[in-house]
């Protein structure tokens, strides 16, 4: 077995799979031997697959879990809370729009920031603290200025945190094992947000709305604790940035322009934007239909259709992480878009609210696939550019644009015509995305036998 080696010139030779390839644990004897005679770290050549300690891996698991806890509930729940605080709909809409705008526009700078810093951990720590503070501020002082600032702060922090987590993961385990690692991240994150949604709902019901935000804010403390248990020396900054940028492409603008030349990245960004164009408005619209059609259990149905897909993501994403290495990325992307299109069609034709909830479970399938594949494919295609995080930011921006257009368009169509037409339109976008994946998207899994 040849030990894996990646070098700066761009050609990658990876060893053929051995049974343990998909799992983050364990290390084959040749690798261990290689590591002991590896050249000094000052040498930029990366050798062998890094094996982070169990402590670091566990710490990353829990960091992702608690971070998802903090981030949940900054969505639609904020508007419920502010309504109870006697805000008008206009003011609520304004604050949410600003937050969404910052969350969209800040994606690229956020990625650039993570690329520019040596320690992704510190950036993540500052961002987690910012999110915790903004949750606390929301709970304590729901006045316009404070909420406005809090939304901007939280949106900006989340722009940084997404790339930072992927960067830390890549820095820890390297490209060969990143697929399984991302599967694990997605599992912990979805369990975290599912539990947090349930917890916030319960505390809002039994205690008060403010208690829900205090709960979210308090999750920032264990998140920081876990973050600092990830051993710094095990995160290789070069790996975390996806290599070293070529001279002349060091700064963010030049880097961004250079990313535009990577065709698979552009195609992938388009596909994911199409996905969100179809997907973003489906849940709110379907939930509204459930409220309309179910009398006693409407709230429970909606709650289940939010939490159950998270559980499905938790179960499926490790599987996705393994299969992405084994089958390649494309079959899973096809699965993702097919689930989306089928879901749209089902929503358009089903009346029974219980069946609607069952159809919503397909969201878990698509969500699991994308949660793993988005950072994975970006890592694949931005391999040696040194702009891994910037690329994540760019794709995140495209995704955000798709999502925004989706909700506005779906709202317009369901007002003008009816909700079935809106669902059919979204299923149509899903089919378009499926066609794009089948026809245009190349397989990005690094090839074992190259040249």
């Amino acid at each position: 077995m040849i030990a894996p080696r990646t070098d700066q010139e761009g050609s990658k030779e990876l060893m053929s799979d051995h049974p343990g390839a998909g799992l983050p644990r364990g290390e084959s004897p040749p690798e261990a031997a290689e590591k002991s005679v590896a050249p000094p770290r000052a040498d930029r050549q990366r050798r062998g697959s890094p094996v982070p300690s169990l402590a670091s891996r566990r710490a990353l698991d829990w960091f992702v879990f608690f971070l998802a806890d903090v981030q949940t509930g900054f969505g639609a729940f904020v508007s419920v809370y502010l309504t109870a605080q006697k805000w008008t709909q206009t003011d609520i809409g304004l604050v949410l729009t600003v937050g969404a705008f910052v969350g969209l526009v800040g994606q690229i700078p956020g990625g650039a920031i993570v690329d520019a810093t040596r320690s992704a951990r510190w950036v993540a720590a500052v961002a987690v603290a910012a999110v915790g503070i903004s949750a606390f501020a929301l709970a304590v002082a729901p006045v316009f200025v404070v909420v406005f600032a809090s939304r901007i702060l939280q949106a900006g922090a989340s722009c940084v945190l997404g790339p930072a987590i992927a960067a830390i993961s890549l820095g820890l385990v390297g490209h060969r094992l990143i697929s399984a690692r991302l599967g694990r991240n997605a599992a912990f994150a979805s369990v975290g947000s599912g539990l947090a949604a349930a917890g916030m709902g319960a505390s809002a019901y039994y205690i008060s709305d403010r208690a829900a935000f205090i709960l979210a804010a308090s999750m920032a403390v264990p998140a920081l604790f876990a973050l600092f248990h990830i051993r710094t020396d095990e995160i290789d900054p070069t790996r975390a940035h996806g290599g070293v940028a070529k001279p002349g492409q060091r700064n963010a603008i030049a880097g961004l322009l250079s990313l535009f030349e990577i065709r698979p990245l552009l195609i992938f960004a388009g596909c994911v934007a199409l996905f969100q164009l179809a997907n973003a408005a489906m849940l709110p619209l379907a939930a509204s239909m459930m409220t309309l059609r179910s009398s006693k259990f409407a709230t429970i149905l909606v709650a289940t259709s939010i939490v159950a897909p998270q559980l499905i993501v938790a179960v499926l994403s490790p599987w996705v992480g393994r299969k992405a290495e084994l089958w390649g990325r494309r079959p899973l992307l096809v699965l993702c878009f097919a689930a989306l299109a089928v879901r749209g069609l089902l929503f358009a034709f089903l009346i029974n609210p219980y069946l609607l909830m069952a159809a919503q479970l397909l969201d878990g399938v698509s969500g699991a696939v994308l949660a793993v594949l988005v950072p994975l494919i970006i890592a694949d295609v931005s391999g040696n550019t040194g702009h891994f995080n910037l690329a994540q930011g760019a794709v995140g921006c495209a995704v955000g644009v798709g999502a925004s257009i989706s909700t506005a368009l779906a709202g317009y169509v369901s007002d003008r015509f009816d909700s079935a037409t809106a669902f059919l339109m979204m299923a149509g976008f899903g089919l378009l995305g499926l066609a794009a994946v089948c026809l245009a998207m190349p397989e990005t899994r690094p090839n074992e036998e190259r040249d």
Partner: protein
Amino acid sequence: MIIREATPTFGTSAQRVLSGSRRGKAEPVVLVALALLGAQAPASAATRNLQPLGGPLSWHLAQAASASQPNAAAPTPRDDEKNKAEKAGVPATVVDGEQLESVLGIEALSSTGEDMGRIVDIIVDHDGQVTAAIIDFGGFLGVGSRKIAVDWRSLHFDPKKAGAVVVNLAKDQLRVAPIYKTGEPVVVIGGPGVKP
């Protein structure tokens, strides 16, 4: 990923702002002021009974928000202790704060105590008479809620239950109602004779 989808994106929140500004120039302050006055409207089952404090009062108000709006400044028949001999002041009434409540954001309950959502807006006609309250009904953590226009006369403000309003309708009557959309004919649910 799924929780993020529930995040209001640029599109939904922009919709909210646009629908708000289409309603006209009404500021939140005036809205609440109108709501307070509307609470005394000729509702047959209205239980409010205002007792202004003290005798006639004359206040020199630098800027009377209510005075700038012709609808809101009209004194209601119940305030017969208003100051009549006003020369250089603005007519005003001082009311005990305990007897008034803001309606924006308060909970709406059915007559059996079920949660029906919260009041998010008040609709008035061009005479300033309050027509309906918009209730944000249903949903979980803000996802899946629907805005329904409920006739003002179906709402009862019980002084014993401060901070909540009782809606004289059943949950099933509310959930099948069409959503309230600005710019379109408003479907107002309920009325004085409607029973749950």
